[in-house]
């Protein structure tokens, strides 16, 4: 193998090996030299507009923007020469003077050490304590407060267009744009409507890339600088995509969630993962409750567990339902508890859908964004796996062909180059005649169209939902080997549950144990039984119908693993400490098993959950 060629450059007197095609800024960053920049963002295409990253490059007549200038062998760069620093200071002054940057009112503002504002940080770094230009704050810059989760203050906007580019390049939602030109330039949503009425889907990517306080998160604003909060990498348990997140916590409170740039979702999140998790929740259940005289009354763990154990012992058969939001460890303990302690096979999932996994080569999230032909069969990723939906739209922007096969309308229909019905890609038919028709006509067009599109592509990806006939799956299996497959699983950890044998199914027994964790009914009603135990973090319609209610941890308190749509096992790390009276699920199950008379050991549970991974 030939080693990749190396471009040797010198930055501030230090010799650096860069890769061809890198910009000066990237090469310097790799070598640990930070070149200040405001419009540049490592995950957005550079545009060289803020002029803060201007550096001196030997043999170049003028200063050049490091963020767009490509490295060349023998290049000599000075990032902090007198000339570069002088112009950088002037440019910073200009930015400060353009709109009313009244730092003291801004949630990002802080000291030289604590400020979260990239502009203010540079102001400190270059010793700016005033600007000489005429102030321009006489103008009444508008504030758009019409969105639920965040606010746009145009006075703090420096027109770096990071938000616009994020909306186009990362979310592929194209809501944000720029209107007018020159000194009248302003960021706008759609055709200059209020942000709250726009096509914005609250993915919040713009918020995450904004260098100043122009886009402010309503919940976490003024609740702590970066230096005062804890940032923990974790996994979002909102759906089966399992997006990488960075949770921002302080004083055992979750303030904000950001997308992890290094994870498969590449920084992108949906409104569920970014905002809904910090929204106010129903009343938290802190202590066990037992129904007494028709009312749920708080009681001690011991009393509640003993009472429940008695009911389970009496029951002829106990049924169990678990939420697919629970990590493998909790699900394993639950399954084990039923099989070993209650000797019952009546255990399943509350809901969920897990399509078969072995149709061909598995795809990872990045394959979707980089694909040039995407087939979506059943499922509705724009609703159920939103981040995947945005990755599809991103691929569409890069000229990928989109084929939607579904009997129902989906949000992606308007993007589809080809729209087919499920029966078009099926070998199946109700009568021999139907079968014949499908085989020779409809199938002929549908399957061959699908095949032709996939064959013409270089990086085809098939996304498929569950509940399809075996004949459709058969048709998919027959596609060329270069196709990568991604199952559109419903239920966060339904894949992990499936490996434990837990699937959504009707369960039988006069007693019912429902382990919901922090899940909420969303209209779903539990089957009626003689005795029902619900273990839940929040009060809900489920707990109101229960005979015994046990507290449970919420997602941010749990520890364990989940398996996402890529089939990867992702660690679920505790971000918050649970209230003292709330225990992990396996702990409750151990206690319960002891009271039933069969002592389940911790090792047994951990063996099972390890086997899942």
């Amino acid at each position: 193998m030939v080693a990749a060629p190396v471009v040797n450059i010198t930055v501030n007197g230090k010799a650096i090996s860069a890769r061809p095609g890198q910009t000066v800024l990237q090469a310097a960053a790799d070598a640990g030299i930070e070149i200040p920049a405001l419009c540049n963002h490592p995950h957005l295409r550079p545009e060289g507009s803020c002029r803060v990253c201007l550096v001196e490059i030997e043999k170049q007549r003028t200063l050049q923007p490091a963020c767009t200038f490509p490295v060349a062998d023998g290049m000599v760069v000075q990032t902090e020469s007198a000339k570069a620093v002088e112009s950088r200071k002037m440019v910073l002054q200009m930015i400060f003077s353009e709109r009313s940057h009244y730092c003291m009112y801004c949630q990002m503002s802080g000291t030289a050490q604590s400020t979260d504002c990239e502009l203010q940080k540079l102001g400190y770094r270059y010793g700016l304590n005033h600007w000489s230009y005429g102030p321009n704050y006489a103008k009444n810059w508008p504030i758009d407060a019409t969105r639920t989760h965040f606010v746009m203050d145009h006075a703090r906007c420096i027109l770096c267009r990071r938000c616009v580019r994020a909306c186009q390049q990362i979310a592929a939602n194209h809501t944000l744009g720029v209107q007018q030109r020159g000194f009248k330039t302003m960021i706008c949503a759609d055709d200059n409507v209020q942000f709250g009425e726009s096509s914005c889907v609250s993915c919040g990517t713009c918020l995450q890339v904004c260098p100043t306080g122009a886009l402010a998160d309503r919940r976490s604003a003024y609740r702590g600088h970066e230096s005062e909060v804890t940032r923990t990498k974790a996994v979002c348990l909102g759906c089966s995509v399992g997006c990488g997140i960075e949770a921002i916590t302080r004083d055992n409170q979750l303030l904000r969630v950001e997308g992890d740039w290094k994870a498969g979702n590449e920084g992108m999140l949906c409104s569920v993962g970014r905002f809904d998790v910090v929204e106010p929740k129903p009343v938290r259940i802190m202590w066990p409750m037992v129904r007494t005289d028709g009312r749920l009354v708080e009681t001690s763990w011991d009393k509640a567990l003993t009472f429940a154990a008695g009911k389970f012992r009496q029951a002829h058969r106990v049924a169990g339902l678990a939420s697919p939001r629970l990590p493998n460890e909790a699900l394993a303990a639950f399954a084990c508890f039923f099989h070993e302690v209650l000797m019952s096979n009546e255990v399943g999932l509350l809901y969920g859908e897990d399509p078969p996994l072995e149709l061909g080569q598995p795809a990872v999230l990045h394959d979707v964004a980089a694909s040039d032909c995407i087939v979506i069969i059943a499922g509705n990723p724009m609703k159920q796996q939103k981040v995947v939906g945005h990755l599809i739209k991103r691929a569409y922007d890069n000229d990928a062909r989109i084929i939607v096969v579904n009997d129902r309308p989906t949000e992606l229909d308007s993007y589809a180059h080809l729209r087919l019905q499920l029966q078009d890609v099926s070998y199946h038919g109700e009568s021999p005649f139907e079968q014949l028709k499908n085989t020779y006509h409809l199938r002929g067009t549908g399957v061959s169209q699908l095949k032709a599109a996939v064959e013409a592509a270089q990086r085809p990806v098939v996304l498929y939902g569950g509940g399809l006939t075996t004949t459709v799956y058969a048709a998919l299996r027959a596609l060329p080997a270069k196709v990568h497959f991604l199952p559109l699983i419903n239920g966060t950890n339904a894949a992990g549950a499936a490996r434990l044998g837990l699937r959504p199914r009707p369960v039988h027994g006069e007693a019912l144990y429902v382990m919901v964790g922090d899940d909420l009914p969303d209209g779903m009603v539990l089957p009626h039984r003689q005795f029902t135990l619900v273990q839940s973090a929040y009060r809900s319609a489920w707990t109101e119908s229960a005979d015994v209610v046990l507290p449970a941890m919420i997602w941010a308190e749990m520890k364990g693993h989940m398996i996402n749509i890529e089939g990867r096992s992702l660690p679920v790390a505790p971000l918050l400490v649970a209230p003292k009276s709330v225990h992990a699920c396996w702990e409750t199950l151990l206690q319960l098993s002891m009271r039933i008379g069969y002592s389940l050991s911790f090792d047994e549970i951990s063996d099972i959950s390890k086997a899942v991974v």
Partner: protein
Amino acid sequence: MTPEELSKIATIEQEEQQQHKHVIQVCVAAGCLSSHSDQVKDALDKEVSKRGLENTCHVKGVGCLGLCAAGPLVRVQPTAKPDAAVMYQAVTANDAADIVSSLEGPPVKRLVCPTNVPFFTRQKKIVLENSGIIDPDRIEEYIAVNGYAGLLQVVSTMRPSEVIDEVMRSGLRGRGGAGFSTGLKWSTVAKGRGSTKYVICNADEGDPGAFMDRSVLESDPHRVLEGMAIAAYAVGASQGYIYVRAEYPLAVKRLKAAIRQAERAGLLGNNIFGITFNFSIDIRLGAGAFVCGEETALIASIEGKRGTPRPRPPYPAESGLWGCPTLINNVETFANVPPIIRNGSAWFAGIGTEKSKGTKVFALAGRVTNTGLIEVPMGIPLREIVYDIGGGIPDGKKLKAVQTGGPSGGCIPEQHLDMPVDYESLAKVGSIMGSGGMIIMDDTSCMVDVAKFFMEFCRSESCGKCVPCRVGTAQMHDLLCRITDGSGTADDLTLLIELCDVLRATSLCGLGQTAPNPVLTTLQFFKHEYDAHIQKKTCPAGSCTIHAPAEVI
């Protein structure tokens, strides 16, 4: 179209022209047209047919005759003796009878516009050689004066690399402003990767005071098409676009007609002159944005986006329109190409100065007697343009400055009037060649006000992408407003100079980088006018309204 067909068209056309004893050329370029030269032409037509002279006298509309201030212009030329042509100025429809009557006798004295004056004799016409001679709406007339012979020569006898060498040897430099070597640009595009390449003609002439490109397009559109086709052959492109200002409706109309004719004649389209060379041209209308004259902004505009420039590299020659290698030249640059091919690079290189070859078309405007379009050899002293060709300053006023290069250029004072007009000399005094606008100002013009005027222009035309241009032009405009209304201070002046340096050093594109030029040159040569506004609260030219009272000491 075969070579034989081309020469046949030329011969037929020439013979037809010989049949007429006289040809009456009526300028129908925008300047004369707005003073109703179309009515003059109609009247002449009627007069000729009334007298039954259709077979001996041919009335035709032609492009710009140059002296726009004296329009409508009419030129009467005896076919046998072209040199004995007579030019009439300020002609009206009522004069038609007199003009036709005088064909065989002495000219109509009251209308005669003398042509033995420096305005005509000092010019050297290459780009404008057909302007005012041929009917721009007829391809045959262009072919009759050797039109498309350059293209024929190129595709039938030269390899693309030879064409580029020829252009390189001619020393032709871009006429759009910066003066980059045309040959070098062509060779970069020719070397560019990929099979799809584009040729773009930049006709987004936006400099205030410049109308050379408009005139060339209105008077001789085929010359530009031929230049583009030669370039396309040289660099290997098959699609061309002409990006033209929508404010030039007549130029657009003539271009459209010319493209249709050339396509019908097989001079554009597929298999031009029977070889496997395909080239078609489409017109693209601008929409009122000066910055689209910048090549990367122009490309963005063709792509259907806002016309904002992007940092270079990569240069459009490597990665331009839709990421393909793209050649962008200005109208006048392309118009120079056919004569270079026909007459050879040595001929062209023999005109002009050592580093600035050929001629340059200037739009002479402002306080000068002869306003209009002129073409002069590079290196001609500025004084000659103003006083000989331009006829000096009217109303007994005194020359104060010559503004060249539009908002990117500068104001050249009287003391530099003897400098030669070429790229390097203009740069030396802080101005630029630009696209060729030349505005003469007398002592009634306030230089601070002129600087403010251009800064206002830059402020409203700034695309707003990069910080220095967006914020800096607005700040500089504010400062200049303060100075002109008498509330400026010495600190303001310091700040103004500081901003000039920053904009120059840090702006993304040429618009911002050169926006300080009008301020810098007026500061350099007319500092006393700034001082008068700031210290004495007076405007020496008397054109600014000073609000603040003089400071009491």
